[in-house]
């Protein structure tokens, strides 16, 4: 038996201290230990993107980061970002455009699109496609998702001017 390792991190702004086995990945830790089930799990080998979370402000695959590696770091999930209002325009556009059906991919799509718009407020469709290329959606066929990100970008640009 391998002894659990103590870790302390912030999750959505709150300090969390826990004991975890080294083999537990960050998404399992968030879901199983903290009950934050908005972050999903598809493949657990980096291909589908459903497990996307933010680690120190950057999106990562939660299934490809160990929970022990998040020690001393800041993690944000769909729950935290959604509550903060940071995703308001994106969420509204996803609803309006029917950019989700089962919703399994949606939290990760929102986090990934959010990162893109933070870096590039007016991306063209090719840039949106490229940035979302690592996120699978098995329902929508992607067009509506690209539409929604484009609309959210315009909504944000309009709100600023």
């Amino acid at each position, binding site marked *: 038996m*391998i002894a659990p390792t103590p870790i302390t991190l912030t999750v959505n702004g709150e300090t969390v201290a826990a004991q975890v086995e080294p*083999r537990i990945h960050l998404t399992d830790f968030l879901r199983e230990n903290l009950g934050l089930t908005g972050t999903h799990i598809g493949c657990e080998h*980096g291909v589908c993107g459903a497990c*996307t979370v933010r680690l120190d402000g950057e*999106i990562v*695959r939660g299934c*490809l980061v160990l929970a022990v590696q998040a020690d001393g770091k800041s993690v944000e999930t769909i729950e935290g970002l959604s509550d903060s209002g940071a995703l308001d325009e994106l969420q509204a556009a996803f609803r309006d455009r029917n950019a989700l059906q089962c919703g399994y991919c949606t939290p990760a799509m929102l986090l990934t699109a959010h990162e893109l718009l933070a870096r590039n407020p007016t991306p063209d469709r090719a840039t949106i496609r490229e940035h979302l290329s690592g996120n699978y959606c098995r329902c929508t066929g992607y067009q509506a998702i690209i539409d929604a990100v484009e609309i959210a970008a315009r909504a944000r640009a309009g709100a600023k001017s």
Partner: protein
Amino acid sequence: MKAAAFNYARAASVDEAVQMLVRGGGGAKLLAGGQSLLPALNLRLMSLDLLVDITGIAALRGIRVEGGTLKIGAMTRHADLLTSPEIAAHAPLLAKAIAHVAHPAIRNRGTIGGNLAHADPASELPACMLALGATLVIQGPSGQRRVQAADFFLGLYQTALAPDEILIAIELPALASGERAFFHEYARRMGDYAIVGLAAQGKPAGDRIDALRLVYFGVGERAGSCPAAARILQQRHSPAILAEAQAALAADLQPQNDHQASAAMRLHLARTLLARCVNELLGRAEASA
């Protein structure tokens, strides 16, 4: 799937990491970005006793230009390479290639050292190292050694690294005046491993290309240099010379059959890429391919 149990330790320095690898025998492995290692552990394609996390070693990160040489720390992430002005200015081949390596979330973790140590034959980066004439700096229990890229990649996931050695840095000669880079790949979607790709650099001189290095990836068990085709392209460009160089690829490459493409399709795509490369380096219109 879930990884089997393993121990985990953070190394504060390269020396400490080497000691941990030595003590761990064959059962210890380095954890860099984890973007190839953790999938393998989660899928239980491998198991190990100890993971040595080297992500905290600040000395292994960063990009510097010294004289005519670019020095890249092994733990420099793909995302850092993508946005580096030094890489864009002095290694445009690498700048072009890195945009094709995986997806944004993976590029935020994956490192150049981990990528090269992993030595995936479909990866863009080993091919760039060969095309750029890189030197790999390695540290082990008996000190440092330097290995040329051509002697580093030995086969499918095989490199010259011993189990207790760490790749610490990569040195690249900066782009010389008159040199131009070409990079293109065919993949199912942006960011996927390539079916076939070509990394090339050379000196266009009128109708000829001097000092040309052609390196294919996704073809065969490791990145494949094509010296025969490159030699032919030192002659004045003509459709016949291009056809001769395209034919010569069959001698230099060992394309494989797999679920993505047949060997014949790979060779065909390799020839198409060569025409694109020659046209781009010589500044000719794409249509004349």
